[in-house]
């Protein structure tokens, strides 16, 4: 049986950053205990409705700031998961943490609870850039949190970095990359800052207070990163993700994210969490009080739905095939595998998407690899991913 992944959403932050449009809230701390109770209840309700005890091979605590809530709650949630699911021995359990919000004690408790991977929101090593993003930590906090994490026994650490920050130059970007590399992480995620509607950053840009870097500038930063990280032995396996080989020689990719890109099942618990199981997508209500209310007052429907669902979407065959392509092509190293497509859908990828594939090949946006068994983005395609993906929506 294919193991599932579980995503847990922790929508609490000490403060909301200027660019952030995630489902998270500052100043709602008093809701934390009842939220965690509801979360555990959701896990139990959905787990009970499941036709069997599913094996779980990845769990991801995202947010918000999961490191912001007391570790005991993380423990509680993991216990709830264990009671309903079979957490595999080698399961990857990731938690997102903010530098500055991690004390040695917290990290030790988390490690003991079973968390074995940390994703740290470093963003930049330049104080001015952090300030512009209204991040509350300093570059030194990053250093310290990694030291604490190592001490607590974390052997798999990711750093999130951001490029395309207003005022950032190639020099400062390289500085941030070097800073990150000097901390010797197993994994790096590099995201291009996007201006999301409704954020303070959006207002600043609209009013002309802040000027975003041009398409050419961010393209150069991205291309530089690809070449630079390769020199340091990193593999770019996804548009924004890089991994280093581990002791056993295997790439230490984020297996939880791979679940998304490989179009495999995941269950989402918590406010605004998304799930995907067989042909069903679920989306929970976003507001914390509403989430708690629905969990406590509504009755669950059939698995994999939850009383907290805001939307449940059934995908037809065509949509599934297109989505498979759309997410699979984000995997810049493996891409999509023809055989896997055939075994999933019983039809040939080349037949179904003949026109699209030929067009994208002719435009040098995708290429064959793995002895003509896989299709993936070219270097140009990585920069122009949307121009590829729009053929599959």
């Amino acid at each position, binding site marked *: 049986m294919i193991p599932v992944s579980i995503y847990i959403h922790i929508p609490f932050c000490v403060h909301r950053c200027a660019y952030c449009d995630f489902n998270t809230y500052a100043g709602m701390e008093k809701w934390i205990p009842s939220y965690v109770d509801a979360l555990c209840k959701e896990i139990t309700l959905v787990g009970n409705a499941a036709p069997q005890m599913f094996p779980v091979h990845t769990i991801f605590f995202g947010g918000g700031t999961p490191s912001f809530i007391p570790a005991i709650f993380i423990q509680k949630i993991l216990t709830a998961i264990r009671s309903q699911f079979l957490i595999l021995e080698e399961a990857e359990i990731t938690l997102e943490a903010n530098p500055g919000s991690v004390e040695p004690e917290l990290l030790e408790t988390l490690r003991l609870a079973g968390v074995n991977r940390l994703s740290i929101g470093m963003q930049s090593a330049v104080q001015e850039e952090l300030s512009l993003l209204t991040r509350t930590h300093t570059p030194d906090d990053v250093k310290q949190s990694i030291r604490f994490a190592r001490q607590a026994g974390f052997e798999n650490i990711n750093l999130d970095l951001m490029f395309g920050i207003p005022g950032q130059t190639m020099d400062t970007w390289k500085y941030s990359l070097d800073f990150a590399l000097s901390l010797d992480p197993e994994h790096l995620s590099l995201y291009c800052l996007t201006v999301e509607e409704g954020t303070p950053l959006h207002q600043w840009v609209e009013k002309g207070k802040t000027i975003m870097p041009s398409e050419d500038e*961010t*393209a150069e930063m991205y291309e530089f990163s690809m070449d630079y990280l390769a020199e340091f032995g990193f593999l770019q396996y996804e548009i924004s993700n890089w991994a280093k080989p581990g002791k056993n020689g295997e790439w230490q990719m984020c297996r939880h994210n791979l679940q*998304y890109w490989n179009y495999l099942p995941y269950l*989402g618990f918590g406010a605004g969490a998304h799930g*995907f199981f067989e042909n069903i997508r679920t989306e929970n209500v976003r507001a914390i009080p509403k989430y708690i209310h629905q969990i406590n007052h509504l009755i669950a429907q059939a698995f994999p739905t939850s009383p907290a669902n805001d939307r449940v979407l059934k995908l037809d065959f065509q949509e599934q095939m297109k*989505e498979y392509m759309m997410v699979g092509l984000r995997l810049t190293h493996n891409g999509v595998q023809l055989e896997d497509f055939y075994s999933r859908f019983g039809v040939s990828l080349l037949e179904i998407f003949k026109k699209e594939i030929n067009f994208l090949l002719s435009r040098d946006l995708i290429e064959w690899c793995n002895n003509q068994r896989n299709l993936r983005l070219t270097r140009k395609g990585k920069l122009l991913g*949307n121009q590829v*993906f729009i053929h599959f*929506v």
Partner: protein
Amino acid sequence: MVIIPSLEVREMSAHIRNFCIIAHVDHGKSTLADRLLQLTGTISDRNMTEQVLDSMDLEREKGVTIKASAVRMMYTAKDGQTYELNLIDTPGHVDFNYEVSRALAACEGALLVVDATQGIEAQTLANLYLALESDLTIIPVINKIDLVSARPDEVAEELENLLGIPAHQILRISAKEGINVDQVLEAIVQYVPPPRGDIQSPLRALIFDSHYDSYKGVVAYVRVVEGVVKPSDMLRLMSTGVDVKPIEIGYFAPELKPTDHLEAGDVGYIATGLKTVRECRVGDTITHSQRPADEPLPGYQHAKPMVFAGIYPTEGEDYPNLRDALEKLQLNDASLVFEPETSQALNFGFRCGFLGLFHMEIIQERLEREYDLDIVVTAPSVEYEVVMRSGEVIRIDSPAQLPDEGLIEEIREPWMLLQIFSPTEFYGAIMDLVTKRRGIFKDQEYPATNRVQLNFEIPLSEIIVDFFDELKSRTRGFASMDYHFLDYRPGNLVKLEVLVNGEPVDALATIVHREEAYHKGQALVSKLKELIPRQLFDVAIQASASGRVISRANVKALRKDVLAKCYGGDITRKKKLLEKQKKGKKRMKMVGMVEIPQDAFFAVLRLREE
């Protein structure tokens, strides 16, 4: 059949007043009409939606009347007698001059409404001259006296100079506030002569407007000039010779109200059952088939389109919908012409002819708004006469139709008489604008204090794009204009072509004066460079005239376009963003391999902005 009128009917015509309201745009014609309807109880206050006569939303928004309309009001005057007042509404824009002239021909009198702050304007004069040509009795009315900026004394003086009516006798009203509107009704009864016309003569009814009704066919709005018409009569349209049996006759109350007869002096309607307004043209005369009149009423003209543009559906599959929509618009608008046209760049669409640029804008907006169509409208063109080396003369209304330069002896273009009316302080600004556009100054008049009317001759092609907006901005909105066709004159004209990645884009071609080709070519190329988004490859944009490249620019290939993050497995959101992007792409036109946004096709229109 001889009709013997009853005494009662004969008496009635002395109690009929047919009048119209003429005014410059925004001087308050529609508001005054509304007040008259209220005051005569034609429409109850409760049913009063503002500006009843302007029945189309678009008109209300633009503050102008597009289609004429008519309404019958019953008014008991101070003399104790009850009068039938027929108000005939006239279109308020220069493109519809012919329609205005026909509406005026249906009246004996006209209210000349002048804004108390603006004073006399170009269309006030243009319409006044039309009214005088139709021998109408003019009743000047100064409106909007309630405004703080009103200067009724000065305006009254202007009107006295213009009309010879003593300033103190001129009515001063506020239609909006209802001040002195009753005096207007009294003046109509007192000064507008009752209609004359022999009811014994063979029927002659003037069509001054029409609309299409899906049950009754074309409903002709008529003024019976002579004779009597009844629903049972067989009728004939004199210009086409078409005979019809009317479905219904009646008058406007203001809704259609059937009646058993209309007679000389009356204003009303005849529902003809005809399928298209083309068979029932404004200006035509209706007579009896059995006992036709010898002569039609004078003044009939076939309204000719002056401005042409291609209209294309953004998506090819909308072609049949666009055709249906144009056909439906044409039902009510005989002056709109169209025929299928194919463009290399835009595929299948229609070449449309309009009375003027304003008419074109209205059609464009109605297609988009009422018919929900995504369309591309190409740069407007005039109709050129091309004299070939062979001696043959051809007429073209699209740059794409222009033959090879080597075969052409001469290109002639239409010239207009342009009248601009403005406060004298903008004299220089106007002169500068017009001469830059190849206009020739003819003469000037000072019809009122501090007011000047400048008369020019100018190629039509120079005023159909942006001219009016430019005039308005240079004169802070004070100047107004009017224009009429003069003649065709030879011009030193060339075709300015745009090539995108080496392929000529026919829809972006224009015919320009040779001396301006270089400047316009450069401006066009830099505008297009702004508007054409970066694509998967470099896009070269060139402008060429007479086989020479005048200007070129490069749109660099797209460098980066990728969504970074898909948070917590939220595929749906990512998909939505991509769907939006795909939709935007679909709205663009493919020219060869290049995607060109609709905006680019308007670039030609906006060249003068910089």
